[in-house]
């Protein structure tokens, strides 16, 4: 009789849960074709294969970093929002990412982390901030024309090959710069006026006439000066004077002591512009994806922890205040211990979730970086379907993952039963 009532549930459970697990365990002991019994070979492969070892290392990083960061962040948000008036608005905003599908979140963050500052918002912010505090150079990629007095020096700089005495004028031509890239202030280049006896003057210009026709190492009428270039007068390896070119590219040193100088155009004039950080490259890919994960889950942690906070009796906090607790003491000695059950549930739930993380990694990591970004769940898919076509090894990995998750699940179940 009892069996009759149980049967539908048992049949469903058996077909959808028990059978797949048993079959996966069985399948994991066969090779890719499914015909040859290989024993534990697929399992040993998990620990020897380079890709699956990377997956294991990354999963470990995920488990160590992501749940604790999300829990801590959720706790901070929950505690802070407890005291502000528009807390519910704030909570709604932080919780909103949970409403977006993980695939969509992945796509969003793929764009956020884009390397080109014109497309990836993080790099756009980084380059903007960077350029605000250290102005980037205007003339990246300039080269000295062969036969000019300039020769490249270490650190993108250029120096004159011959010594120059005060009282002389020098021409310092550069090429390799697109005319369109010149600053708007640039005007037609002119040879610098002759300097006084104790000075050196000169012109730095783009020695290139559009459409051809100009004379090399000579200031032609259609050629533009290069404004804003720093020029140093160097004597015995030390910069003794420094000046900047005007809109027509001319510069002048005055009151130089007698002697021989070399002129230097420091590397700062020609450095490549700051391009931000390569988030989606092999080295930063895992932290980047964890960042996206935190964005999604912080709201979940916050809402649960805030509910826990609300359940702490107000008079206990007041009693602690009367007992002499500062806000920090209150937080550490009263709030956190009383929240411990909630924090544990949140943490363990996140650990289970992180062990299974797949979609974010799959979407955010570009195909070429996937071997570096891979985690166990993704590696399982890659091995079985995504090119590996070895469902034996994939099944082994699935069983392995299942074993990893189960202690956390048992822990949560036990807690649950205790609370009841």
């Amino acid at each position, binding site marked *: 009789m009892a069996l009759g009532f149980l049967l539908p549930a048992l049949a469903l459970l058996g077909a959808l849960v028990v059978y797949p697990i048993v079959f996966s365990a069985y399948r994991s002991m066969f090779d890719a074709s499914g015909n040859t019994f290989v024993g534990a070979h697929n399992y040993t492969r998990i620990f020897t294969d380079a890709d699956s070892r990377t997956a294991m290392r990354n999963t470990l990083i995920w488990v160590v970093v992501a749940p604790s960061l999300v829990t801590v962040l959720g706790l901070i948000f929950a505690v802070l929002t407890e005291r502000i008036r528009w807390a519910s608005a704030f909570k709604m905003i932080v919780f909103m990412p949970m409403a977006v599908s993980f695939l969509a979140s992945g796509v969003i963050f793929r764009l956020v982390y884009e390397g080109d500052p014109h497309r990836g918002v993080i790099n756009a912010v980084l380059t903007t901030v960077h350029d605000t505090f250290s102005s980037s150079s205007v003339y990246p990629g300039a080269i000295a024309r062969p036969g000019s007095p300039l020769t490249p020096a270490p650190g993108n700089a250029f120096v004159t090959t011959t010594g120059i005495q005060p009282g002389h004028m020098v021409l310092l031509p550069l090429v390799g710069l697109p005319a369109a890239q010149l600053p708007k202030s640039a005007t037609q280049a002119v040879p610098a006026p002759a300097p006084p006896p104790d000075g050196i003057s000169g012109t730095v210009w783009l020695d290139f006439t559009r459409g051809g026709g100009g004379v090399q190492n000579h200031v032609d009428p259609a050629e533009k000066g290069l404004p804003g270039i720093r020029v140093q007068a160097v004597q015995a390896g030390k910069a003794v004077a420094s000046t900047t070119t005007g809109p027509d590219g001319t510069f002048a040193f005055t009151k130089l002591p007698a002697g021989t100088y070399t002129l230097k155009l420091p590397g700062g004039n020609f450095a490549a512009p700051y391009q931000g950080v390569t988030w989606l490259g092999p080295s930063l890919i895992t932290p980047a994806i964890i960042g996206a994960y935190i964005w999604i889950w912080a709201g979940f942690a916050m809402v649960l922890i805030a509910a826990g906070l609300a359940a702490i009796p107000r008079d206990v906090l007041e009693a602690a205040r*009367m007992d002499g607790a500062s806000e920090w003491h209150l937080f550490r000695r009263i709030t956190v211990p009383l929240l411990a059950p909630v924090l544990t549930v949140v943490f363990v739930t996140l650990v289970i979730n992180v062990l299974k993380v797949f979609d974010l990694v799959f979407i955010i990591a570009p195909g070429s970086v996937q071997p570096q970004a891979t985690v166990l769940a993704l590696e399982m898919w890659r091995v079985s379907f995504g090119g590996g076509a070895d469902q034996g090894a994939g099944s082994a990995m699935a069983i392995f993952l299942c074993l990893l998750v189960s202690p956390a699940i048992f822990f949560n179940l036990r807690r649950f039963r205790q609370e009841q």
Partner: protein
Amino acid sequence: MAQIVLQDVDKIYAGGVKAVDALSLEIRDGEFMVLVGPSGCGKSTALRMIAGLEDISGGTVSIGERVVNDLAPKDRDIAMVFQNYALYPHMTVEDNLAFGLKLRGTPKPEIKKRVADAAKMLGLEPYLKRKPAALSGGQRQRVAMGRAIVREPQAFLMDEPLSNLDAKLRVSMRASLNQLHERLGVTTVYVTHDQVEAMTLGDRVCVLRDGKLQQVDTPQRLFDAPVNLFVAGFIGSPSMNFVTAKLERDGVSFAGFKLPVPADVFETKPGLSGYAGKEIILGIRPSDFEDAAHAKPDWALIDVTSTVTEELGSEINVIFAIDAPPVEHKDTLALAKDATEGEEEETAIPLLDNKALWTARVNARSRVRPGQSLELAIDTHSMHFFDPESGLAIGHPDTPRV
């Protein structure tokens, strides 16, 4: 130890509700002051302002010589006992007691000694290693007490600490509280809505209503000389009987009765004679009645028919109707509302033909039964007279002369 002085203290909540209105109160060093009043009278708010858990909207609170308006609770050197005990559930009894001392950086041996002393005083020694969840209500209350005691603060603040205990335990805890105060002599401010607690515990009792101070005095003086109808009706159980009566030089008449007013009553209540020939509100305490058979011979007599009798063993409460409508003054209405827990629907006994029900407390030897007629004697020296307009006691030393 220190005195606590409240000077014109106001508390206005965000919605503009005035919870405490110009409260001035001086609590002397070592005194046990009870704040009492119906729910919502502002007594807890006043206490929380002394504690520093509520901002003070106006006026000053000083503890000792210091004005503490802007001090955080932890810097006021006072300890508080909460209604729901407010023990730290994750700490053992011992840690609960030691928490405040640890935060203040008291040396370890000193903490140990103080905790041991307090535990001994309160009989908590067997429970020191237990968590609060494993304690009974009374034990938790004692831990809460102990947490205040170990701190050796300037003052104790207690917010209805006994109201969560069952009746019997409450009586015994009341006695131990009394003892404790005797022993420690620490200034104590105690909030309760239970006038019996107020009367038994307080050196002085402060009656509050709607955030306003009504009367501060010793329990006996509150009982004997209430300053207005509200205090008269609030203090004493069963509460005072009221009736609108006509005062003459030779007596006061109401509901077909005429009681003589002794000459010395007119002398001790200056201004009373000015009311001769006018209407007043007469108040008689149930304990100023007696069965004529057991009363002193010089008490005035009235004949009544008992409606209900409550036999308490040592005495009998006789409830009877008098031929007069109940007094409808704002003070008595407020009391009635409080008795029904603020519900609109009147839950008390329905009135018989709009007749006031009075209670008399008579000797248990009087074998009065419901429905019997009874001759009651009244102590006419202890009658209370109130102005029907203002509700103020006539001739009370604290009342401004009319």
